[in-house]
């Protein structure tokens, strides 16, 4: 409850930024942190809870972006276009889910890897989506609209993850990660759950992508379906700490900050640093920054308690 209240308060603060005279630069940083937070929470839902690694969350957001732009250009109102973005992305995720989630292990990861590549190749061949040249949003919207929508979505995603993590479904998902055979033995329908949570996770990406399309307004297949966004979607929760609602929040803020610093210091080192961070966290800091911070707090607490008893 307290967690939800803090999240809502933070979101409200971030959402009024464009109207409170904060500089465009700061507003953009907050916007991107919110965008990456939504993608990170979506990845956390699927891969963080079930252990099935997705390399395609950026491409799922790309589907949402394309759907939204094509719908708005076709004369649909923005709300309906965003609904369509969610629906199309969720449906597309079934292509991966149904082919690979019946199987154990790496099959899913392979299916996501190739989904990303196939989408890029496919969209470039699709004249309706503008082909290789991409497409542009015909309506001109104020950037405050996607800003507010994205911040609210990020808050919603974070609260939704926290609720899911504590629910029975969340425990079942974690059981699949722990030992799928044992989970199946106690009556958990792993296949259905995995496909369901992946679909929900994809829907969230679709919404984020749709909103992001309103922000960037012009879509090029190479950048929309670039692997980079998918890397961010998994780097954010991994660096912050998987399985927790707070992890991606810390990860998104850290990532956006790091990217800005690198932009000034060493713009071309970006990929190398992100890769190294993921590697180091995976090898040495398995529960991410949030996990490390918690352990540190715990140690201080026990230390203080020991001091008290000594007195």
């Amino acid at each position, binding site marked *: 409850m307290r967690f939800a209240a803090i999240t809502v308060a933070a979101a409200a603060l971030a959402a009024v930024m464009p109207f409170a005279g904060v500089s465009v630069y700061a507003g953009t940083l907050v916007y991107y942190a919110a965008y990456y937070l939504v993608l990170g929470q979506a990845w956390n839902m699927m*891969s963080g809870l079930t*252990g*099935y*690694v997705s*390399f395609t969350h950026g491409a799922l957001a790309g589907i949402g972006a394309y759907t939204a732009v094509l719908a708005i250009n076709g004369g649909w109102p923005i709300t309906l276009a965003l609904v369509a973005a969610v629906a199309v992305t969720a449906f597309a995720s079934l*292509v991966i889910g149904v*082919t*690979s989630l*019946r*199987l*154990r*292990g*790496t*099959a899913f*990861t*392979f*299916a996501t*890897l*190739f989904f990303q*590549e*196939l989408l890029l*190749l*496919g969209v*470039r*061949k699709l004249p309706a989506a503008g082909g290789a040249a991409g497409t542009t949003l015909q309506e001109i919207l104020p950037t405050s609209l996607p800003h507010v929508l994205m911040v609210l979505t990020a808050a919603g995603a974070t609260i939704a993850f926290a609720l899911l993590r504590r629910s029975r479904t969340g425990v079942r998902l974690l059981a699949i*990660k722990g030992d799928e055979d044992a989970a199946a033995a106690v009556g958990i329908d792993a296949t259905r759950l995995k496909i369901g949570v992946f679909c929900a996770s994809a829907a969230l990406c679709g919404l984020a992508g749709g909103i992001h399309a309103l922000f960037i307004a012009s879509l090029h297949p190479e950048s929309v379906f670039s692997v980079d966004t998918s*890397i961010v979607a*998994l780097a954010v929760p*991994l660096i912050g700490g998987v399985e927790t609602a707070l992890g991606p929040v810390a990860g998104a803020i850290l990532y956006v900050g790091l990217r800005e610093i690198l932009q000034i210091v060493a713009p*071309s*080192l*970006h*990929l*190398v*640093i*992100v*890769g*190294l961070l*993921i*590697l180091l966290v*995976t*090898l040495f800091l*398995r529960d991410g920054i949030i996990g490390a911070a918690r352990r540190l707090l715990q140690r201080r607490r026990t230390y203080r308690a020991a001091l008290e008893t000594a007195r």
Partner: protein
Amino acid sequence: MTLILQLAINGLVFGSLLGLVALGLALVFGVMRLVNFAHGEFITLGAYATYLLVTTTGVSPLWGIPIAALLGATIGLAVQMLVISRLAGRPELEALMATYALSIVGLGLFALAFGGDFRTYSAGPAGNVTLAGVVVGWRSITVLVACVIVGAATLALVSRARTGLGFRAVAQNREAAAACGVNVVASERLAFSVSVALAAICGALISFIGTTTPNVGHEWLLDGFVVVIVGGLGSISGALVAALAIGLLHSFASYFLDDSWAQIMTYVLLYVALLVRPHGLLGARSAT
């Protein structure tokens, strides 16, 4: 008829390179149950090493093969000791993330060092030979022969009594193998190192007949994954047949449609393979 033969030979060259990529993947997967997402970056390493060797010293690109192999084996050993050895017994998510992170680092390093330019060189065997109306470049013939020699040498190593037995024992049960006196650490180091050397040799050969970019290895790796999945992960003969089949598919589809359609068809094959393989990538053994 001449056209079909011509396309078949192109497919054969492409397929033999794919087979070598797949062999490296299958070796590491077979021994360590590890899917190495960084395999593609080791291909790129071999390609750039050969490119630099040829353009700076002017020697024949054939020297790129042993140099790349040596470089690959050394770097592979280092990566195995620093990163991969820490992954034994870890959950799959962490092993995947670690090799994926390695791949991102490699991609970033190559982009940093070489930029996005397409790099080629003209040194080495040149010209064509005409056999029954089919024009075959000497470069293609060199690649084909090199692939067969390197592939056969690797298979000989894997099936050789002690080394191969060690590999298979570690693959079946790491602890039991160690208890029976198999040097598990050495087996795993050797397997990974040989696999990376194979990737680097592939890169050297690819730089020879194609263009080198920071992405080149990644693209070959995707096709390599399709090959090992269609052929059945862990089955070397299955992978070789799949490599030739996909090589032919690619060659014919690129000619009659275009390059992207060839890629789309290859990638769709992966989903088909997943659908018709209800027991997973390893067949019956995937239960564990």
